[in-house]
């Protein structure tokens, strides 16, 4: 972990206020994600709930963006490579003010800007279209190269799934990112340990994941992906790592926040209904 902590330029009070605010956002996002998927009747709650802290921390504690000007040239970029966690991205973007929150319940509905997987053409704040796994990091490499070429100070953040790291293209992109010394690029891996068919290590073991990223020339951090303080600190380290991109392997729990979804692979791609939804909402609201 870097020596420079999250509170380097802020006072302790400001810092804890920021963390408190992010935690509030996370509670709101969890609730909205469940309502959205419940209303849609389909979607991916498990992997959406595992990355709530990561995406919320980026948008509310790290990235410079202008919701009223989503294509502001100097903005920091976020690429949701694991596109099936779209509900979390949408809930965070709405919370940030990129579009009205009342759009959220239209997720996956005909005519909605909130497609089942992110669609850059339809949704303000969505940088690229993802959903076919393995492609986001390459697009982020292109954005980071453009940033270097234009001598802009923006940073590019990516969120990958752990199962997604089974895609070969991820490693093509990883190689290119360190080759071109893209220190304006950082990738989180949402390491929740589960994929559709079962445990990631049983289906096709990507471990040792940290060693793999290191071997591809990346700086690597391993953090608790639900600990906002730790995520802020990791992002701060990644922002001050000259000469190389940073991979942040975030240990997470699939379905985090809903007891009956936590660590259960059947909640990868199933919507909660009726009683399940009410119970889930109760749990995330009081947590």
């Amino acid at each position, binding site marked *: 972990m870097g020596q420079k902590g999250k509170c380097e330029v802020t006072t302790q009070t400001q810092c804890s206020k920021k963390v408190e605010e992010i935690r509030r956002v996370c509670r709101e996002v969890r609730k909205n994600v469940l309502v959205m998927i419940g209303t849609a009747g389909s979607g991916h709650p498990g992997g959406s709930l595992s990355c709530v802290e990561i995406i919320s921390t980026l948008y509310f504690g790290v990235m410079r963006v202008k919701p009223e000007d989503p294509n502001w040239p100097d903005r920091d970029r976020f690429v949701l490579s694991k596109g099936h966690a779209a509900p979390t991205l949408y809930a965070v973007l709405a919370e940030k003010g990129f579009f009205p929150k009342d759009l959220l319940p239209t997720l996956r509905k005909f005519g909605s800007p909130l497609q089942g997987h992110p*669609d850059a*053409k339809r949704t303000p704040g969505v940088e*690229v279209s993802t959903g076919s796994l393995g492609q986001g990091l390459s697009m982020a490499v292109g954005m980071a190269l453009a*940033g270097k070429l234009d001598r802009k100070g923006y940073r590019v953040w990516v969120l990958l799934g752990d199962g997604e790291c089974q895609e070969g*293209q991820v490693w*093509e992109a990883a190689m*290119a990112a360190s080759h071109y010394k893209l220190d304006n690029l950082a990738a989180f891996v949402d390491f929740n340990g589960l994929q559709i068919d079962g445990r990631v290590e049983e289906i096709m073991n990507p471990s040792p994941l940290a060693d793999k990223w290191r071997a591809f020339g990346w700086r690597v951090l391993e953090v608790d992906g639900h600990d906002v303080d730790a995520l802020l600190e990791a992002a701060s380290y990644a922002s001050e790592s000259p000469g190389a991109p940073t991979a942040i392997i975030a240990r997470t729990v699939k379905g985090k926040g809903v007891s009956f979804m936590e660590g259960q692979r059947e909640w990868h791609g199933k919507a909660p209904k009726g009683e399940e939804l009410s119970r889930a909402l109760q749990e995330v609201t009081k947590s």
Partner: protein
Amino acid sequence: MKATREAYGEALVELGREHPEIVVLDADLSSSTMTSGFAKEFPERFFNFGIAEANMMGAAAGLARSGKVPFASTFAVFASGRAYDQVRQSIAYPGFNVKIAASHGGLTVGPDGASHQALEDIALMRVIPGMTVVVPADAEETRQVVRWAAAHDGPVYIRLGRSPVPDVFPQGAPIQPGKASVVKDAKGRGFGEMRPGGERDGLDADVAILANGIMVSKCLEAWELLAAEGITSVVVDVAFVKPLDEKTLLELAGRCGAFVTAEEHSVIGGLGGAVTEFLSENCPCPVVRVGVRDRFGQSGTPEELLAEYGLTAEDIAQAARKSLELKRAE
């Protein structure tokens, strides 16, 4: 005689001087795709991604999203096949402004054999919504198409060839990218001898021969063969397989009523596919397709391969005779 890939490389350097937003990407084939000239003059705007085409296409999408105009080059088999999903998902679905310039299309790759001979690339690219698909006939048309593509906002696939091809268009010819070009009319007038929009009577012929890429010059040879038999034809370069110049096709359907298509590609899904689809819905008339009949390629010289796969001037003439027979039987 010049290969279209060479003209592409030269055009890139010219455009690079005018447009700082143009960047060029390659996947370890820059001396074959001819992006090496750009790399030499603009090293900071050239990115070699190594033998990793999927990543190259994704990075091109990211560069386009950031306001650059990327030209991504590799062989046509890899651009359309290996990286199909990236072209579809990362580039075309969000409508990003990426130009895919794919060299070594078709059989005339020659001795490298079937693994390197793209005969399906036009079909694969044409079926993607919003993708413009262009197969220029010679160096001059390539130069103009590349220039057009740089100015056009949206994804474009340009197919280029390995082997030198005869010049079809004079230098500086007033080609209108997107429009079909009559390169020889029934009266024997070439492209340079016709006023744009004028002298349409030269389009009254027994048969219209539509072609692109290297096949355009083969069709000009076929024109002579047919003329010697008293069959009049008009040879039209349809570089833009998508979007098709429907207006010209309808005019030719009215004036000729019989077609041949000729392409260095499978008869399935390419120019022949596009033309028959359009005509059957709008003005049904005979179309006989010259192209590869559902086979893979193989090693050989370009001329040996064109003969083996039925892509010679005589094959085109034969197709014209058949089309004319079908028209007369109607």
